[in-house]
């Protein structure tokens, strides 16, 4: 028994095993026919595509098991195209695997490292080039070039400035003012307190003055949810309670987390849930966050009724609505 450690040896490349088609012309012929059939299937696919394009009307729907009701033209155009492409590929690969040479070949690798000589030469060339330019000997040129290059980098920044206006007060303010009527969305109808039953929810927006147009930017800030509870359900301080009207409470619908519409109201638990990240707000406690990633309650809008009995804002929002930003103070 030898004590010397001897590693297992590399037996070298295994002998090449011939395929049946390499040795028997009969099998080679058969493979050839198979390839031809695959290519013909592809041609048939294109034919199917052409026929579907001409003969199937664009509005024809058919029932296909699993898929359900499907647009026939789109389905058969797609199937034709899929066949046409797939079988070109299948044919080419079958051809390559059975009829093209499959001898493994060995190629040598070479280390990427250049010879020491070349590397020295390279460094020398760079040094000589830099020396010839005299960058080291002429610091004035070096420094002024640095200044020029650095400053020229400001150009694109400066020119991109006009991409948009400065935020100014835009993130801080909404269109709600004291006395603005709440109107339904959609419909733009003013709302009487009696329109809402206990447990009801309504999406509202501020009423537009004649000739005003509502943009998506407005909706993105102004959307307000009205919810009616029994007044005794509230668990609010005196100030917040005075912001409600006969059990009707109003919150910004724009999530204080990332600005999605807080669209899900659970009547039983009186919770509002944002479908984007599942922040959950308790309506009875002024939309306090009780679960999820939101860090702040939904801003509450103080409401009351005007002389005609329609719901109006008592005051603008007391804080910015929507997601946080650097300039937000609380």
């Amino acid at each position, binding site marked *: *028994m030898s004590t010397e450690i001897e590693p297992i040896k590399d037996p070298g490349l295994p002998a090449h095993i011939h395929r049946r088609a390499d040795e028997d012309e009969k099998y080679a012929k058969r493979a050839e026919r198979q390839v031809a059939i695959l290519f013909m299937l592809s041609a048939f696919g294109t034919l199917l595509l052409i026929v579907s394009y001409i003969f199937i009307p664009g509005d024809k729907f058919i029932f296909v098991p699993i898929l359900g009701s499907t647009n026939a033209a789109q389905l058969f155009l797609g199937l034709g195209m899929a066949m046409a492409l797939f079988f070109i590929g299948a044919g*080419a690969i079958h051809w390559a695997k059975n009829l093209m040479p499959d001898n493994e070949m060995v190629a040598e*690798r070479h280390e990427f490292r250049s010879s020491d000589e070349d590397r020295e030469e390279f460094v020398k060339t760079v040094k000589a080039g830099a020396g010839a330019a005299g960058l080291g000997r002429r610091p004035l040129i070096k420094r002024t070039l640095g200044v020029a290059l650095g400053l020229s980098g400001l150009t694109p920044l400066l020119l991109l400035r006009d991409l948009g206006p*400065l935020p100014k007060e835009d993130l801080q303010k909404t269109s709600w003012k004291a006395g603005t009527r709440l109107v339904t969305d959609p419909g733009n109808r003013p709302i009487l307190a009696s329109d809402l039953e206990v447990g009801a929810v309504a999406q509202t927006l501020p009423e537009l003055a004649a000739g005003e147009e509502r943009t998506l930017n407005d909706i993105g800030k102004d959307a307000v949810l009205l919810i009616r509870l029994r007044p005794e359900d509230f668990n609010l301080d005196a100030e917040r309670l005075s912001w409600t009207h006969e059990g009707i409470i109003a919150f910004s619908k*724009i999530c204080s*987390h990332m600005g999605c519409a807080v669209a899900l109201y659970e009547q039983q638990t009186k919770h509002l849930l944002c*479908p984007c990240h599942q922040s959950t707000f308790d309506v009875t406690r002024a939309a306090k966050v009780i679960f999820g990633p939101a860090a702040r309650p939904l801003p509450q809008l103080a409401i009351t009724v005007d002389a005609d009995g329609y719901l109006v804002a008592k005051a603008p929002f007391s804080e910015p609505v929507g997601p*946080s930003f650097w*300039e937000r103070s609380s």
Partner: protein
Amino acid sequence: MTARERIAGNVAGYVDDRTGAAKWMKKNLTKVFPDHWSFLLGEICLYSFIILLASGTFLTFWFDPSQREVIYDGGYAPLSGLKMSAAYASTLHLSFEVRGGLLMRQIHHWAALIFMVGIVVHLLRVFFTGAFRKPREFNWIIGVGLLTLGIVEGFLGYSLPDDLLSGTGIRIAEAIIQALPVVGSYIAFFAFGGAFPGEAFIPRIYTVHVLLLPGIFLALITVHLMLVWYQKHTQFPGPGRTEKNVVGYPLMPAYMAKAGGFFFIVFGVTAFLGAVASINPIWLYGPYTPGQVSAGSQPDWYMGWLDGLVRMAPPLETHALGHTISWNILIPGLILPGIMFTLLALYPFIESWATGDKREHHLLDRPRNAPNRTALGAMALTFTLVGLINGGNDILSTTFHLTINQMMWFSRIAIFVLPPIAFVITKRICLSLQRADRELVLHGRETGRLVRLPHGEFVEVHEPISPEKAWTLTAHEQLAPLELPEYDAAGVRRPGLLKNKIRNRISRANAVAVPKVTESERKEIEHGH
């Protein structure tokens, strides 16, 4: 010489007279590529990129990248008379009135998903087999760049139709920008041309989606492939394969036919998916308005893990000195992904620092033979998967009748607990597999044949494995741990002591392995029998 050969000769001569390409062509047309199914993953990415360019070009002919408000009067009755952006209306037109338009939209979206799956699985293959090691670090970094850009490009792409779902996604992206300290609201206003949503964003991301990013993709993919070509492909260990050679099939003709054929296969499968599998049916979501959202809003899967991290973040915000910092957005939305992508990009350098291995590697590792790396990969993957699962927490809750709170608390705990567990288990599995390899080489494979010996004992007959197999299972090298000494030769304490200790510790962990079988051991066993 046949007429055909003469013509081919003439063409080749004509080209060579003007370019001198014959020498280069001669060498490269017979270039050898090793064969393995996992080497097709990168090809899938390349082909789906080509499909994306082709189908995307088709879509641009009809798509109107504008947020100008129009009243819909097209063929889809349920939305008739509704106000919507021209982008959304033109996407409806593409889906319902342009013949093959819906097919192309679906092919484009499916190709994007395949592109991203391909990139991720290709990345995993490269990671777990150690293909990123010297000299291929540059290509690894380019790959990480392509992954990152792919996520951005995909997000911008599905944002273009301006439907309710994608608009919600843009809203969230805007909130992330807005959360940046100091400059957030300014950058958001510059990006959106004012307050959200404005009318500038879709035309702007359209330019980025169809021109800027595809241009960068094209450049990066070209360099990626040129490097693969120039550095020659890695190969798995096996008989006759060494660090100094590459064993495989020549480009011309077999490899060319296979690769070309595979392009058509990928295209065919994508077209089939586009034909039968509905994806992103935007007409069901309705046009975007900031006041609405649909339940079960989900991003595409490659964004899902990020959304999952955002969902599980604790409600942390700092209010101080009249300013707000939203940790609940910054940490999961920017800081964590920033750290993850940086670590991913730097991994080749981290590993070579820890092992002290600065040599070239062209033979791939079997994942079990690099237990630490494999376990790290499993750990990162588990982290991302928990994020992805939480990204679908609402869907999972309704599907499995759980509460959203249970799902969220599961994820919040699992994101800390499961990755380390995955590390430990994976490392154990790797070492067990090494042990199994050792058994196999030493004692051969179980034949399932039981033999009764004269004295009554039953034994199972083992058959020795082939020399080729034995070599494949033992061809890897097992590195000894770095033992950086505390004192140098002159007895002086070396600087960076703590750093060296950490390095020693990692290197020791890296070197844990089941000793591989030597020929001497095998012979000893044979004599023993």
